């Protein structure tokens, strides 16, 4: 797959996400990607940029309450005022494709958001909701088929086995490519297990071309790591630790970018405090690891193989028992097939029965399947471990090791 994309007619090249991603894949510096709310002042975003962020997306969850207008204004202001900063939109809700079109006209060159992520966040998998989400994002994808626009699809922010996250990303990828997108970023939410996270990124690299061969003809594919998924951090130190683990995995797997999740709450007097700190932290960590990679090892290979096998098993469950689906046949699945699979729990894992937990080595496994056909990890007995709280009783672990709902 090519590293670069054709230039859009919009902002100068130094403001284009495609150029930033291409530069990151050829140089030592990786991208620190910050997300800001729609109402953020341009001056605050400038501070985030100065802290080390190369790419900023403006989060929009709906078109009401002036959010959309504020987002468009911010994108336009940043494009006009902040040199060498690429700007984009991060869609967290159901917004119209016309809004996205206006964002692209205002200077955005990057659009993030995906239907599966939205449905997981809203814990909805009824047929109507799924169909509505797929239709809305199909329209957004059509807008992102413009030359040079980068489209990020992200796995749901849930503590799930990596195979499930990879499966979601591949389905999102297929949907986006089907609607004309050719420059894709796959956003993987880190789980805090070094080998497993690196393996998941390697698996994505290996499997994505199989489900989206269209990208080999002038398209681009980049990997992104989101610093944390799952429940919000209860204490800031856990946020920093989770951010560190995720950023280490991203750096050692040679992902192109890291999406910053602020590890500390913002100061009301300085609304960008947490984000600036998160960007500084991430910039430093990525730069320290710029020349380091997690080399091949039997453990990494085994984890990667396990993830790939589980992904294939998950896709097989999308077909009928008589004719299980394969990676290659994924592209031929219609929106209706995908809708059905999501609605019956095979795809989104929203079934109450689905549970994940950490094994004795800290890796995240499916300990109970959400639907027939999903692989389940046979968890060995856990080793004894010291108390996972500090002496003041604050939870020091970012996740309950006993298993969480997927």
């Amino acid at each position, binding site marked *: 797959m090519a590293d670069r994309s054709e230039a859009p007619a919009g902002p100068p090249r130094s403001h284009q996400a495609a150029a930033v991603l291409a530069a990151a894949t050829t140089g030592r510096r990786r991208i620190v990607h910050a997300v800001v709310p729609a109402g953020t002042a341009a001056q605050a975003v400038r501070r985030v940029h100065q802290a080390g962020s190369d790419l900023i997306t403006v989060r929009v969850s709906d078109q009401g309450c002036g959010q959309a207008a504020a987002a468009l204004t911010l994108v336009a202001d940043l494009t006009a005022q902040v040199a060498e900063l690429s700007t984009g939109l991060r869609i967290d809700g159901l917004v119209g494709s016309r809004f996205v079109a206006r964002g692209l006209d205002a200077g955005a060159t990057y659009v993030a958001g995906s239907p599966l992520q939205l449905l997981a966040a809203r814990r909805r998998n009824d047929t109507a909701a799924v169909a509505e989400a797929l239709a809305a994002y199909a329209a957004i994808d059509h807008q992102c088929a413009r030359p040079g626009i980068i489209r990020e699809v992200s796995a749901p922010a849930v503590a799930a086995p990596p195979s499930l996250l990879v499966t979601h990303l591949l389905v999102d990828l297929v949907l986006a490519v089907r609607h004309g997108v050719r420059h894709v970023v796959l956003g993987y939410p880190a789980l805090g297990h070094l080998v497993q996270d690196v393996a998941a990124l390697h698996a994505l690299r290996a499997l994505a071309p199989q489900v989206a061969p269209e990208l080999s003809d002038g398209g681009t594919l980049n990997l992104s790591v989101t610093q944390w998924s799952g429940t919000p951090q209860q204490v800031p130190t856990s946020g*920093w630790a989770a951010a560190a683990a995720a950023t280490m995995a991203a750096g050692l797997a040679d992902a192109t970018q890291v999406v910053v999740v602020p590890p500390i709450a913002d100061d009301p007097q300085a609304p960008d405090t947490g984000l600036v700190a998160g960007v500084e932290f991430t910039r430093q960590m990525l730069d*320290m*690891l710029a020349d380091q990679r997690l080399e091949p090892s039997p453990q990494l290979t085994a984890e990667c193989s396990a993830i790939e096998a589980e992904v294939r098993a998950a896709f097989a469950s999308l077909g009928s028992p008589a004719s299980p689906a394969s990676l290659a046949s994924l592209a031929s699945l219609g929106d209706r097939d995908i809708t059905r699979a999501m609605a019956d729990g095979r795809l989104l894992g929203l079934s109450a029965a689905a549970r994940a937990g950490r094994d004795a080595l800290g890796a995240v496994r499916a300990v109970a399947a959400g639907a027939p056909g999903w692989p389940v990890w046979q968890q060995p007995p856990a080793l004894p471990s010291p108390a996972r709280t500090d002496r003041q009783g604050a939870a020091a672990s970012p996740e309950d090791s006993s298993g969480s709902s997927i």
Partner: protein
Amino acid sequence: MIIIPFGKEGYAVPKPALRPAARDRLTEEEFFTERAGVLASWPTGQEADLDEAVAWHRALPEAKAAPPLFRRARQLARPLVYPRTGVASLARHLDDVQQLYQAGAELLCTHADSYTRTRRFEEGQRALEESLRRDVSLLNGVPVVNYGARKMREVAAVTPIANQFRQGTPEGRLASETVYAAGYRSMLGGILGSVPHMRDMPIGECIRNWQYVDRLVGEYESRGVSLHREYYGALMGMVMPPSLMCTCLVLDALLAAQQGVRHLSLGLNNNLHLRQDVAAIKVLDRLVREYLDRYGFTEVEATPVLHMWMGPFPPEPAKAYSLITLGAFTAAYAGAAGVIVKTADEAIGCPSTEANVAATRLTRACVEVAAGQHYPDSAALAAEMDQIEVEARQILEATLRLGDGAIGPAIEEAFAIGYIDIPLAPAKCNAGRAISVRDSDGAVRYLDCGNIPFSDEVKRFNAERVRARATAWHAEASYKLVLHDFSAKAFEAPPLDLEVASSG
């Protein structure tokens, strides 16, 4: 000065130590004769009564013992988290220690102030009195000798777990007497780690001083009190070749064991290269066991621990956290028995209590996120381990052939001829010819091996790796790379080259 001819040019070394390294375990007579002088060197020295101290230790609960902590950490492959702290006021120090314990510290450390480390007790006394009068700490640690053993017992009495005293000095005999008599169960400080902290003292005298301290620990051991000792591998504030750190620590361990130490930890510097740091910890663990066994110290317990980055820290707390977390994860992935915590105040000076508490919590959180994980075994890891081990063995074997078979004198000679050469250490006893630098993927190599007794193959390997970096960086393989590695901005990746991306 004595000029030792070597190769094309001789180089100067200071005159021999007046008190050279002992060849063997200090005899009772040697030890107690010397001890009388040590205790008489400051009035509080008389409080270090050995019999009374042993009784005090025996009265302390088992929960305050240090060796089991390290043993358990090794079994669980989960590093102990221990921050360092110390201010002039003992009451304030106790408050700080309690806060750190609440934050998750698993070994409570008392850091020596600079006057104590340089035996300037009179100046320390004045600074202590002024600090108490003004209610502000004018000292960068606790003046334990000025307080004396009886007063310092408050620490062991009120804290619920083991205490460690830390002193980077070539002469810590009286401070060691004081803290062990006060009930401290662990102490950091050693011979080769002292070299970066000294200038004029002959290495033989430094060895002799620490042999005394280790003999003191051996004396406690012989009276049924298990104490713990920790050594650190020549922690200059820069990148340190792992093989040199491993060498120094193995030699420290042998000298300690010879004097009767039974429980020790060996601290490596985190060079911020994950694979190499993990490799160094694993090699150290293996080598120290092998050499202890070879010399008959089979019952001595030795565990590797990791010091977070010792070089320049960025002033931004968030960036400092990045270095701290990388150190914490490295220790956890490597299965180190402990990790010594740095703080976000590192770029400014001595850490505030708040910064120490935050860093302790952060380190604990990282260790817990990494629970159960280890760095995967791979061909690259094995190759790095082999390289470190080959280099360390070449120095160790060459060194241990010196001194007519006695370890202490062997180290003295090794320094004199540059077999052991700590990069950029200011001590006059150090040859100062070896220089370390990062290679093209960030691992630490020798830019100049000086007179370290490496084979041609090892020298060639290091030269090739450094040359590869120079080529990649379009720079000379020279000291300029060292200067870059030394700077606080050493890790900043160059900006994105949008033009190259555009045209490429």
